Structures are given as structure tokens and as C-alpha cells.
């Protein structure tokens, strides 16, 4: 399945929808162009959700194989990126279910450590959030917080969609998101403090 330069140029000028139709007819070069356009976003999404490079790589592979099987069902009613991201999220969630990963238990009224910590210590002056540090901190979140944060804040899904995908209530989704943000703040502050101490 090597690529032919000329055909690649032609493929590159096609829309995702046209490429999807060509792929559904078995055109592997069209599918390779789709892969080249979207593989980094799909891999990044998998990596953020599972926080493990090897697992993310395997999931990306499975997502694209599944995409090839299902690509004929893409009718262009929504953006291809949205459709593909939904496919990816569903696949990763299925993977979680197989592994028995559960969302952290929450109570609507319960106090959480991060809020308690804040009430005791207060907030420092807000600082610029380093994207790389945030990326690392996301991988340190408990799976349930991480999933909701990635789906809502990184991928832009609404709480209703997140709740639907995860089979939880909207209230739980909101509560997990708030806790995730509070925990991230804590993790980011810890990292900055460690850096400062190391410099001393």
C-alpha cells in the first residue's frame, strides 16, 4: 500500500466527504489522506483519555480500522471531524467498559478535597497556564475526572452529551468537571511550587 505522489496530490485537494466516499469504494489512497489529516487529533484524544501511549496507539489503530469499515455510513450531515471524534470517543469508552474503568463516585452535596484545600489555603495570584504542564496534569487526573474534562473542556462536548455518553446524570457530569478543574489547579500549583523549590 505505497503511496503514489500524483494521486496523493489529487487526494489532498478533495474534501473529507469526497475522500470518505472514495474510501468507501476501497480507495486506500483516499483513506491514507484521511489518516494523514486526522491521525494526530485522534491519537491525541485517545492519549488524553487513557493517559498511556501504548494503549493510545492501539486504540488509534482500532479506530481507523473501524473507520474504514464504517466510512460508507458517513453521509456528510455533520462535519467529518465531529463524526470521527464521536467514533473515537465511543471506541475509547467501550475500551474503558471492557477494562471495567468506572467514574469516581460523587455525591451532589459532598465536599471534595480540592474545595476544602482551597477554602483553607486560598488562591494565589492567577498565572499563565503552561499548556504542556496542563497536558501532563490531565494525565494525572483520576480516570473519571479525566474523561469528563477531556470530553467537555478539551473536545467541547456539552454536559448533556457527556452525560449521555457516560450513562450518568448531567449533575454528575458537571460535578466531575468542577472537581477535575479544581484538581488540575492543585496539580499545576504543585508543579510550579516544585519548580520554585528546585531553583532555590
Amino acid at each position, binding site marked *: 500500500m505505497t503511496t503514489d505522489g500524483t494521486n496523493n496530490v489529487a487526494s489532498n485537494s478533495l474534501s473529507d466527504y469526497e475522500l470518505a466516499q472514495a474510501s468507501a469504494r476501497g480507495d486506500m489512497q483516499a483513506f*491514507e489522506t484521511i489518516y494523514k489529516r486526522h491521525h494526530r487529533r485522534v491519537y491525541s484524544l485517545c492519549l488524553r483519555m487513557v493517559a498511556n501511549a501504548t494503549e493510545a*496507539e492501539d486504540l488509534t489503530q482500532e479506530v481507523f480500522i473501524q473507520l474504514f469499515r464504517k466510512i460508507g455510513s458517513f453521509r456528510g450531515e455533520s462535519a467529518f471531524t465531529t463524526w470521527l471524534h464521536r467514533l473515537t470517543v465511543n471506541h475509547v469508552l467501550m475500551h474503558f467498559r471492557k477494562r471495567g474503568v468506572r467514574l469516581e463516585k460523587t455525591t451532589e452535596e459532598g465536599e471534595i478535597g480540592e474545595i476544602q484545600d*482551597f477554602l483553607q489555603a486560598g488562591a494565589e495570584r*492567577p498565572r499563565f497556564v503552561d499548556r504542556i504542564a*496542563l*497536558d501532563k496534569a490531565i494525565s494525572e487526573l483520576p480516570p473519571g475526572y479525566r474523561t469528563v474534562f477531556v470530553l467537555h473542556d478539551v473536545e467541547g462536548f456539552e454536559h448533556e452529551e457527556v452525560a449521555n455518553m457516560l450513562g450518568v446524570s448531567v449533575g454528575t457530569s*458537571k460535578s466531575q468537571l*468542577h472537581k477535575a478543574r479544581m484538581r488540575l*489547579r492543585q496539580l499545576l500549583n504543585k508543579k510550579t511550587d516544585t519548580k520554585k523549590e528546585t531553583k532555590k
Partner: protein
Amino acid sequence: MECRAVVSSLSDYLDGRNIWASDDEVERIETHLTNCPTCLNLKLELSEIKNAARELPVHTPPLALWARISKAIEAEVPSENGPARETQNASGWWGWLNSRKFTFSLPQLAAAGAFVAILIVAGISGIFGANQAPLNFQDVRSGLLLPEENEIKANLEHRLDAINARKAQWDSQRRADFEQHMNKIDESLKLCRHMLEGNPNDAGHQEMVRALYDEKRRLLEDVERLKW
């Protein structure tokens, strides 16, 4: 309004989902934020995190991933019953092996236990190894995991020598990716060796070893085909 109540409502407030709250409540939050620098700082911090989340760095998977994907698809396309099934099975084994270290849930363990019990009861090991010379404990201790392993190893080592000679010209990322894959396969082989030491004719683990060597062969073939 107390800090505790404001902190709990901040994410909703930041997301602009104030439908649940009356205008009065929103006004109370805003008044509190005007008078409480600590809560205001928290709001700004959470807002920074929320905004930064939309601009996170994009990660790149290893270059060889497309080769693996296209090969798997290629194997599926010609026929649903032919070579495709073989490749899928190998890939299934490999996927299973990859996830084995940390992803077993209780039901999966129960299923695996049941599978092993069936193997024992049905005496399948005899069927698997019927056309091959049986291994004994000494073979395994001396490094032999399969009756045909010496041939497989010779073939792979020959290919690996040629690739190792070119590796110095690869960029560090590609080298690291390749070595990571090879190490992963070798680690799994080591685990299988450990299992086979206990039972040299364990057909399940012998099959796993074959699948692992097959994975290694495919990885080397990918590298050769990509002319790295």
C-alpha cells in the same frame, strides 16, 4: 454569600450555565467576586485552565502506525474468510497481550480461568502439538520456546542485522519507537518463557509465542517495506 457556595458554583458560572440560577443569585456571585480577591483569583485560575484546555499540544503517533493500519485493512479487504481472519487473530492476540498486564477485569479473569480449564479438560494441548515434536523442560530452560523456534529466530536475526546496520541513520524518535516495540515484544516473550518453564507443552502459551514472533516479523517487514 459565603466563599464555599461561590466556589461550588464557579464552574457553572464560568460555563455561562446560569439557567439554574436566578438573576439574584448570579448577582450575588458577582458581588462576592468583587469583594473577595481569593474567590476572584480562583475564578481567574479556573478560567485560565478552561481556556488553555482548548489549545493543548497535538501529539503524533509513531510513523509505523499507518503501515500497521493499512496492512490490517488490506488483509480484511480481499476476503472475510481468507487471510484476513489470520491477521485479525494475530492482531487480537497481540492486542490482548498488550493489554494483559494491566487491564484484566474480574469477569475477564474468570473467563480466562474457564478457558484454561476447558483446555485442560479437553486435552487440547495434544491437538495443538500433534504435528510437532514435544518440548521438554530442558528445551525451555535452554531458551527454546517452540519446536520450530531456531528457524524463526535465524530468519528474524538475519533481518534485524540488516536493520540494525541502518539504524544509526534514523532520527532519534524513529529509533526510540522501533526499540520500544521490539522491547515490548521481547518482554512479552520473557513472560511466556516464564509460563512455559512451568509447563513446556502449554499450548496456549506456545500459540502466544508464535503470535509474538509473527508480530516481530511484521514489524521488521514494515521497516523493510518503508525502506527505513
